[in-house]
């Protein structure tokens, strides 16, 4: 038993729970991949710790990304939630937005005459309206009668509501009515599960604000129960350290704050990988990076600019808008389990349907018969057939059989069909990267691709070539790289407020006062959580030209604002607009829409990558060859295969080459040269 102090990063996926342990003193890394136990995620954590031979009483910190809240929304197990809103406005839950977008693919949606909007997040029978009106100026036009709120709540409770959300018009400008309602409701509702929009998303656009508030209310008991059970179980096993959770924006938080704002965990799954990529980007001194995480069902890509993942102000969960600070990550249905099929027009398509882990790809031999991306790679010889984790035996025979039907229908050889599947999957991933780079004014030729996840390294050089990205980095243990993000993430909180003011009318003193208030709020949360004063405070504003509908985030100076800073702020907006849209209008008036502040304490330093156990050079060359289809026109050729743990820093490899390791396989195509760096990363460049 290893009694040294450890920190754990845990990524709980739908199929596997990845546990990455770093020994605090030496930086030694060990990893375990164990099956996720649905309904009892903590069992997966305990099993992973056991497998690593660790005792929980020597663990000082556990950081994990929890899918509890996301799963609850997808499975519909969130609390029955009632809604109280301004008279005349609660049917926005049904009306939603006008844009036609509810089809399988957004592109098909505008032509779909039969589109059906998702059901309202809160059904009409669980919504009540009260007389009250706050104007856009913040002036109260009609005072709220708290008695009406109580009557509405009683009616909702009688209809089975366990939680209640309150959202009134213009509360972002004046939240007094919502606060009054909350005070009354907390006495009335036995559970105390009450959310008001002023505390969840104090932003303009009331439909999104209503839904966000209701989503939060519905998750209050979900995350509360989860945290309690995790806490108890870990304590039973001797854990006395700190339990932290990943948030959607890529910063971690203690449980206290999240008990009131469970929705902040909604996108905590994919963000770990992007944070890990930003950590590695700094180590490697690469200021422009594309993080690419390809797992079993999805390909999640994110830009990392100046060692940070950009934040957006919202996301969607199961079609419902959730306006919380969220790392800007694009997910498409392209992963190892993505299913290949021929569409109505006779063309080959890959995904978004996935075989998942059950039955899984045909080659798993668990009853899957549909060909997947993994089956295609295995048939081409690019996938390390004896290296998959969790004791799955891969069957090349089953993979081939699954492809035969498809190849026959297309009238081509099995190898050609397999290569076609890979090419189309890579094209889909490349399109996703282009939408994040070229579409937003970034030149992919200036970027480095960091590729990970079980299936990322298989496609990395193909994808880089498709996007004209000149350099690829494949980290050590790519299959569990996301959990490294949990360990290295900052501890951070955001505070936001609405601020609809033309920049010409801004009073600098007033703006400074608003920013300081937000800073105090974020600092307070952080100190409450960590006992520390933030070492980094950041300010930004959402801005737009007058009469524009959508705003852009603009980073602002962090120091107290002076009179001249308004011109600097205006200038930064013009620049941001130019970078995003290719033009700016310096003659046009600019306005503020919302203010955002973040406060952060960096994660305790982790010696990751310094204790490199790779490259036992004395063991000699253990590479071998096996047949790989590089180009289907030429058939299979013998390609060198290296076990990753035997590679030495400085060693050079030349594509085509295959590198196998327990959580992933890397395939490097011809025309790419690889150097193993001092951390053990594979750094590939187009020759």
């Amino acid at each position, binding site marked *: 038993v290893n009694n040294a102090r450890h920190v754990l990063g845990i990524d709980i996926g739908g199929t596997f729970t990845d546990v990455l342990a770093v020994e605090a003193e030496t930086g030694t890394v060990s990893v375990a991949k164990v099956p996720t136990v649905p309904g009892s995620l903590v069992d997966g954590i305990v099993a992973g710790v056991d497998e690593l031979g660790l005792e929980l009483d020597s663990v000082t910190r556990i950081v994990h990304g929890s899918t509890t809240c996301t799963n609850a929304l997808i499975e519909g197990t969130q609390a029955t939630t009632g809604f109280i809103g301004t008279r005349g406005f609660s049917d926005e839950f049904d009306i939603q937005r006008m844009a036609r977008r509810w*089809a*399988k*693919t957004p592109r*098909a949606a505008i032509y*779909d*005459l*039969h589109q059906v909007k998702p059901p309202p997040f809160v*059904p*009409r*029978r669980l919504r009540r309206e009260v007389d009250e009106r706050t104007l856009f100026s913040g002036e109260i036009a009609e005072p709220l009668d708290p008695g009406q709120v109580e009557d509405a709540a009683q009616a909702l409770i009688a209809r089975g509501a366990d939680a209640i959300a309150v959202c009134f018009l213009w509360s972002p400008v004046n939240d007094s009515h919502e606060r009054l309602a909350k005070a009354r409701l907390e006495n009335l509702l036995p559970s105390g599960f009450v959310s008001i929009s002023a505390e969840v998303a104090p932003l303009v656009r009331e439909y999104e604000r209503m839904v966000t508030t209701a989503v939060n209310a519905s998750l209050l008991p979900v995350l509360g129960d989860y945290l309690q059970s995790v806490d108890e179980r870990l304590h039973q096993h001797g854990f006395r350290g700190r339990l932290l959770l990943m948030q959607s924006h890529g910063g971690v938080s203690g449980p206290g704050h999240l008990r009131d704002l469970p929705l902040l965990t909604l996108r905590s799954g994919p963000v770990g990988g992007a944070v890990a990529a930003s950590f590695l980007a700094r180590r490697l001194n690469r200021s422009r990076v594309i993080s690419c995480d390809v797992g079993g069902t999805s390909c999640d890509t994110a830009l990392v600019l100046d060692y940070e993942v950009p934040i957006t102000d919202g996301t969607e969960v199961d079609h419902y808008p959730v306006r919380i600070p969220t790392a800007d990550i694009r997910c498409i249905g392209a992963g190892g389990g993505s299913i290949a099929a021929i*569409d*109505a*027009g006779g063309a080959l398509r890959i995904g978004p349907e996935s075989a998942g882990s059950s039955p899984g790809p045909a080659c798993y031999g668990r009853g899957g018969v549909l060909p997947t991306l993994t089956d295609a790679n295995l048939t081409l010889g690019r996938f390390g057939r004896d290296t998959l984790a969790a004791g799955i035996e891969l069957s090349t025979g089953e993979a081939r059989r699954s492809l035969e039907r498809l190849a026959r229908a297309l009238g081509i050889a099995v190898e050609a069909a397999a290569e076609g599947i890979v090419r189309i999957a890579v094209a889909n991933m490349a399109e996703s990267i282009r939408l994040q780079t070229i579409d937003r004014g970034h030149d992919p030729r200036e970027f480095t691709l960091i590729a990970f996840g079980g299936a990322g390294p298989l496609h990395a050089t193909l994808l880089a070539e498709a996007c004209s990205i000149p350099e690829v980095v494949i980290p050590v243990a790519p299959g569990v790289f996301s959990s490294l993000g949990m360990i290295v993430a900052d501890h951070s909180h955001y505070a936001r407020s609405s601020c609809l003011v033309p920049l010409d009318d801004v009073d600098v003193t007033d703006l400074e006062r608003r920013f300081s208030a937000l800073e105090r709020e974020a600092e307070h949360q952080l100190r409450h959580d960590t006992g520390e004063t933030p070492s980094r405070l950041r300010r930004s504003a959402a801005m737009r030209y007058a009469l524009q509908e959508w705003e852009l985030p603009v980073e602002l100076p962090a120091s107290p604002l002076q009179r001249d800073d308004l011109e600097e702020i205006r200038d930064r907006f013009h620049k941001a607009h130019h970078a995003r849209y290719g033009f700016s209008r310096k003659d046009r008036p600019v306005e503020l829409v919302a203010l955002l502040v973040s406060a952060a304490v960096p994660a305790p330093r982790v010696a990751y990558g310094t204790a490199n156990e790779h490259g036992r050079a004395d063991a000699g060359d253990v590479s071998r060859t096996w047949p790989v289809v590089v180009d289907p026109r030429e058939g299979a050729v013998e390609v060198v295969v290296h076990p990753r743990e035997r590679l030495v820093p400085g060693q050079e490899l030349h594509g085509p080459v295959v590198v196998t390791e327990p959580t992933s396989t890397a395939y490097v195509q011809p025309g790419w040269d690889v150097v193993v760096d001092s951390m053990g990363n594979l750094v590939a460049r187009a020759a």
Partner: protein
Amino acid sequence: MKAERVAVREGDVLVIDATSGAGFGNPLERDPHDVLEDVLDGILSPERARAQYGVVIDVRAGALDEDATNSLRIELGRAFATTAPSHTPVDRRGYELAPPADT
């Protein structure tokens, strides 16, 4: 409404009354459970449900009274047949065709 460019001055009140969407088919053939859902959601009153859809709802329990609904629907169906003798069943198929497969 057929009006374009109506000048609205300060103090004017513009009122637009819209009907709900048109119905389709015989209300007596609408699934009573769907009618119940509409009543629970407050977009149809229990009185209308009874008079026009022949659906009897126990308002206090928020539940369907199936026996009463069945006999009321038979009764209303007879009355309907005498007042609208030329009624022919509406062919809903064209409207309810499944959306084309996504391509």
